């Protein structure tokens, strides 16, 4: 279990705006994903936990050990923190072979155990035949396996991964996810994984923490966070399309309906408990939930087709009013000769943030 409550402020520099990190998180065994845009403080959080960066205040607790406590003036050296760290660029020592890289990390172990341990890890990560090569002589995926093996050889109590899938092609990504799932099963430690890839988040994340501007904007299981983003900022970070600023113009609990005024059109939605008449809200609807039609009706809005994008599994249509619709190829074939386009917002699918 890792418990972190830290704050750090960076004064504005010549090329950087002021930034402040203010993070509170807890992670148990399993994969916790730190998700957010570049510059939201994800890697900085890992660096604070690993001890490369000293926070201004707060406390970091790993199991029962205090790694950092500003008030008590405790600040363990990175050497003493026992956190495995997989760097974004792998940081394998280029002047050492893969075996030597692992042996370097194994020097904390008793002398007699080292050799066995190194061989064991080389075997486990399918690197035995490559062990005499230098990092630049092996592929990116192999380098990455080696860097994960190196981070794990000292049996860390926490594993930190900084964008592990970055720069890997699809098959290597799949192999990485498999490796990480294996690690999650074999090593019963918390794994903090930094990414801005949503797929990775769903593939691996038991929990996700959405970071924005140095803070944690929302946390929860990935599917729950995605189903109900806490606010429009989180929705934007998650890449949610179809976000509209709206005002509630009617609420009828009896008939379970509401009226939402968006720019120059109105929609009928379900009743939203806890909201009041006149509230300014954000309406969000999944691109897959929107329907297309060629004639008028309830909750239908006339639009102009701007762009058609062929996706691997679906067709994405971009319309005026910033509306995006996704549909199957077959459905699109039926609709593509429409003279006029109307987008229907199915009432039950309209979420408000």
């Amino acid at each position: 279990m890792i418990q972190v409550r830290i704050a750090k402020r960076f004064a504005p520099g010549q090329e950087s705006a002021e930034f402040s990190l203010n993070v509170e998180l807890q992670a148990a065994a399993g994969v916790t994903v730190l998700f957010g845009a570049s510059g939201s403080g994800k890697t900085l959080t890992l660096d604070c936990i690993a001890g490369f960066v000293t926070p201004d205040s707060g406390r970091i607790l790993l199991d029962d050990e205090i790694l950092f406590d500003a008030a008590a003036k405790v600040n363990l050296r990175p050497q003493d923190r026992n956190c495995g760290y997989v760097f974004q660029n792998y940081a394998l020592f280029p002047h050492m072979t893969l075996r030597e890289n692992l042996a370097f990390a194994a020097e904390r172990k008793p002398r007699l155990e080292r050799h066995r341990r190194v061989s064991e890890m080389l075997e486990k990560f399918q690197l035995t035949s490559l062990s005499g090569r230098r990092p630049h002589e092996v592929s990116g995926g192999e380098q990455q396996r080696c860097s994960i093996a190196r981070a794990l050889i000292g049996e860390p109590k926490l594993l930190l991964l900084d964008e592990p899938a970055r720069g890997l092609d699809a098959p290597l990504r799949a192999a990485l996810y498999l490796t990480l799932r294996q690690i999650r099963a074999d090593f019963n430690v918390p794994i903090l994984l930094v990414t801005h890839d949503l797929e990775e988040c769903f593939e691996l994340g038991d929990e996700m923490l959405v970071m924005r501007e140095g803070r944690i904007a929302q946390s929860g299981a990935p599917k729950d966070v995605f189903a109900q983003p806490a606010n429009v900022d989180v929705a934007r970070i998650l890449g949610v399309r179809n976000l509209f600023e709206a005002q509630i113009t009617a609420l009828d609990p009896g008939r379970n309906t509401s009226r939402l005024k968006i720019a120059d059109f109105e929609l009928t939605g379900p009743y939203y408990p806890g909201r009041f008449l006149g509230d300014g809200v954000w309406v969000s609807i999944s691109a897959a939930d929107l329907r297309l039609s060629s004639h008028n009706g309830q909750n239908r809005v006339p639009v102009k087709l701007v762009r058609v994008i062929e996706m691997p599994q679906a067709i994405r249509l971009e319309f005026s009013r910033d509306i995006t619709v996704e549909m199957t190829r077959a459905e699109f074939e039926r609709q593509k000769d429409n003279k006029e386009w109307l987008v229907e917002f199915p009432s039950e699918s309209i979420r408000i943030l």
Partner: protein
Amino acid sequence: MSIDWFPLWLSLRVAAIATVVSLAISLAVAYLLSYRQWRGRELLDALTTLPLVLPPTVLGYYLLVVIGRESPIGRVYESIFGSPLVFTWQAATIAALFHSTPLLIKFTRAAFESIDPSYPRAARNLGASEWKVFWRVTVPLARRSIFAAAALAFARSLGDFGITIMIAGNIPGRTQTIAVAIYDAVESGNGTLARTLSLVISAVAIAILYLTNRLERRRPAG
């Protein structure tokens, strides 16, 4: 006319010793300047840069005051070795050291600072002591640049004139280094000797520059 090669051999020996000592000093100082945050950092940086900007004769004069026969260091040296330190080949080595070390410190520091910080971080993260990080990661990663810088420092050590003339003098067969010998030859109208020694020292310098360029060009992989 036979040429006295003593100044060349003396200079090579002086430069070799000075380079080895200079390298040790530079590794330590460059480490303190690049990797440690401490109070005296700026001061140390300024002090080690000073010899680059002071006229060599001024530096030589200071050294003469510090290691001369009347100074504490000079007296201690004389009581141990039985002879004064100034106007010996050892003094010429000190002169070469002061001439080359500031440059080597700058280059070594640049070499350290050009290393991707994730390597030393990774080493610390894996439990390596600062000593182990330095010798097993930082220095090996910077080794090409350091070798190249040491070769340049060697070339520079060969060429000192100002400090050498102040503290080692111009004693033929004892402290007369090649730069001093060339000056001496020109002064006494021995054009052949001046030309020969100048050509030799130029050849050595070009050879060293060629070597450093080759070292610098083959960047370490990774």
